[in-house]
């Protein structure tokens, strides 16, 4: 069954189109991550689903029921806000209890419900505190507990880890999947952190300027980004983007970097002669002493999270980032040779920024025939 179906949703503020004809569908119990830069419309989309913002056009169905004109209190969703949005004049207990009191549960049922979810989130010892007496991490967990308390079928999480420190964020990132799957709810999770997106998503929808420019599994997004803007955002250190013009000779399609061949493999016929951008992840480049290696000058080595990232420039002045696990032998500073693993590279059309899918021209030819 469908957990959430959104069709042709459009939202404008004055002349600004914030959401432009959004359609998407999520299966029940799935986690969809909405990823995108700030101002892309993620939060507005989430609010439309919650009913806090009314769209100009389009429909929203939750669990198969059309909810487009239902006020927020009737949609039965749970939501956690980026700024927590706790009720400052109520204790943590009353905050978490608010979805239960709305459903007119008895006192005993409310108490046991709040205590169960508080225990799950390890905040049962601070239930009597007012929000201002809570640490940032506890506030965040209280907000999450409030969203979960009534065990909603649909859970909306608006960048809930944004305002907590790195250590807590990491802890929660590993804890959340268990929590969410125990709830069995359909989840929409908004974030700007690609690692959170990769870690938590069944599917990722990348939103840019009010449009979904790609929706797919983390694997699709990371390995086969549909657009250069997606490639740039996923990966740290960021992907190397090199301006190239693919060529063809008897041996096949290739691009040349510093007069060295990098094989593209078949299927890129349509790209030959067109200005393109080659995307190569820093971890797909290795140091090599071979004759085919591209000669570079090492600019700086920056240790990064159990990896070492090297900034190097080619003779033509292109900057290249190379990443390797920490502790693996380093080239002597000065010059070195590098090898590009072309099988992991992606090619984008320079003009449109869209990825050129290998073999797509062949398929098209077959379809035409």
């Amino acid at each position: 069954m469908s957990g959430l179906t959104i069709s042709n949703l459009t939202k404008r503020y004055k002349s600004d189109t914030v959401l432009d004809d959004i359609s998407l569908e999520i299966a029940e119990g799935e986690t969809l991550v909405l990823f995108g830069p700030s101002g892309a419309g993620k939060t507005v989309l989430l609010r439309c689903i919650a009913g806090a913002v009314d769209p100009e056009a389009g429909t929203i169905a939750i669990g198969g029921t059309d909810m487009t004109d239902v006020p927020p209190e009737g949609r039965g969703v749970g939501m956690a806000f980026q700024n927590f949005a706790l009720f400052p004049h109520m204790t943590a207990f009353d905050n978490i209890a608010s979805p239960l009191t709305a459903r007119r549960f008895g006192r005993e049922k409310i108490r046991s419900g709040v205590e169960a979810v508080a225990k799950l989130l390890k905040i049962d010892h601070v239930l009597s505190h007012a929000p201002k007496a809570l640490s940032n991490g506890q506030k965040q967990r209280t907000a999450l507990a409030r969203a979960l308390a009534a065990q909603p079928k649909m859970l909306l999480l608006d960048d809930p880890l944004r305002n907590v420190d790195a250590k807590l964020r990491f802890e929660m990132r590993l804890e959340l999947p268990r929590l969410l799957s125990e709830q069995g709810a359909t989840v929409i999770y908004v974030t700007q952190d690609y690692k959170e997106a990769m870690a938590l998503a069944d599917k990722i929808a990348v939103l840019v300027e009010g449009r979904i420019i790609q929706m797919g599994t983390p694997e699709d997004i990371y390995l086969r980004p549909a657009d250069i803007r997606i490639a740039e955002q996923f990966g740290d250190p960021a992907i190397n983007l090199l301006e190239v013009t693919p060529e063809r000779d008897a041996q096949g399609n290739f691009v040349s970097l510093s007069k060295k061949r990098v094989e593209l493999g078949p299927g890129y016929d349509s790209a030959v002669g067109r200005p393109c951008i080659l995307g190569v992840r820093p971890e797909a480049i290795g140091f090599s002493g071979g004759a085919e290696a591209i000669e570079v000058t090492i600019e700086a080595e920056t240790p990064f999270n159990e990896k070492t990232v090297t900034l190097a420039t080619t003779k033509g002045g292109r900057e290249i980032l190379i990443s390797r696990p920490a502790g693996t032998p380093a080239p002597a500073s000065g010059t070195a040779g590098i090898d590009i693993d072309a099988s992991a590279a992606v090619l984008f059309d320079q003009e449109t920024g869209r990825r050129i899918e290998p073999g797509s021209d062949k398929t098209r030819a077959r379809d035409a025939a």
Partner: protein
Amino acid sequence: MSDTALDLQAVNKIYNPRSRQAVHAVRDLDLKVDAGEIVALLGSSGCGKTSTLRMIAGFEAVTSGAIVLAGRPIHTLAPARRRVAMAFEGYSLYPPLTVRENIAFALKSERIDQTEATARVDEIARLLDITSILDRYPSSISGGQQQRAGLGRALIRKADLHLLDEPMGQLEPQLRAHLRGRIKHFIKERGLTAILVTHDQTEANALADRIAVMEDGELQQFDTPDVLRQRPANLFTGTFIGEPPMNVFDADAAEEDARFVFRLGDGVRLAYDPGAFRPDLRETILARGRVTLGVRPHSVRIADDGAEATVDASQWLGDQTHIAARFAGTSIVSVRHDRMRLERGDTIGVRVAPEDLHLFDTATGAAISHGGAPA
């Protein structure tokens, strides 16, 4: 042996010293920064790093102690006379000036001629990728661009010391790795001495030659990133440095059947060949009995013959996999550079090599040993 550029001697900072709300922000800080070195002051908010920076820059008076820069005591001088250049955390560009004028403004006191000034601004603009916005005003550019312009204004100056306060917090993620490399190259090439104040260890690790870890106003450890990772002086540094943080377990040490054994919670035992630990260390550990055992996520191996653990989450991030598993009554995190497909509920074996073990005193947190050798 290189020269000392900056020397902090027993520096103290106490706010409201005579009132009941006295705050001892910096305690007896001794720190020597060599000429041409990049040092990071790293700590969470309230650890004293910003007070230290402000004392060096001259925005805050030292309560006691001395600050010597290039042989001159500077702690009584006005900020403008300390020969210190600073990039502020807030962007703090002058709104009525263009980006170019903002950056060139720093050169006014150097009295250099126009063509050279222009050349230097252009060079720094190329470095920071702001050439295209040089003629715009601060209000019309993004936060990341403002921060880069602010950095440019600090780096362009010739000074005995460059102070960079959270210089990359606002930068566009996809530019960060490039800019880190370029800035490090720029500082090294010119032999500048720089102090970087940050709460972000990624930044500190990437740029700094040595990192001063601060907490509660006290210097916890001052050493190279490698030493901080491999030989943390105490449990605080051990768990603070490293992403994701170190796994920590309480353990009882014992000798059983000629094996050196750590008993963790939930009946889990880590057994080693006694030869992996130096004899004197073995005795120290056995005499203590209870120790705190730390192991970095990157050192947690997954092997069939290891101690049993149940997978809670397995997250592939593109270039690495993070695995969280229930283990020894708590949870353990393992990180690998490749992709590993595991499902929640899978049973895995966890192994930790003796050379990856860090032992700490359970009461004080002081390090006892790293990888079989005493700390």
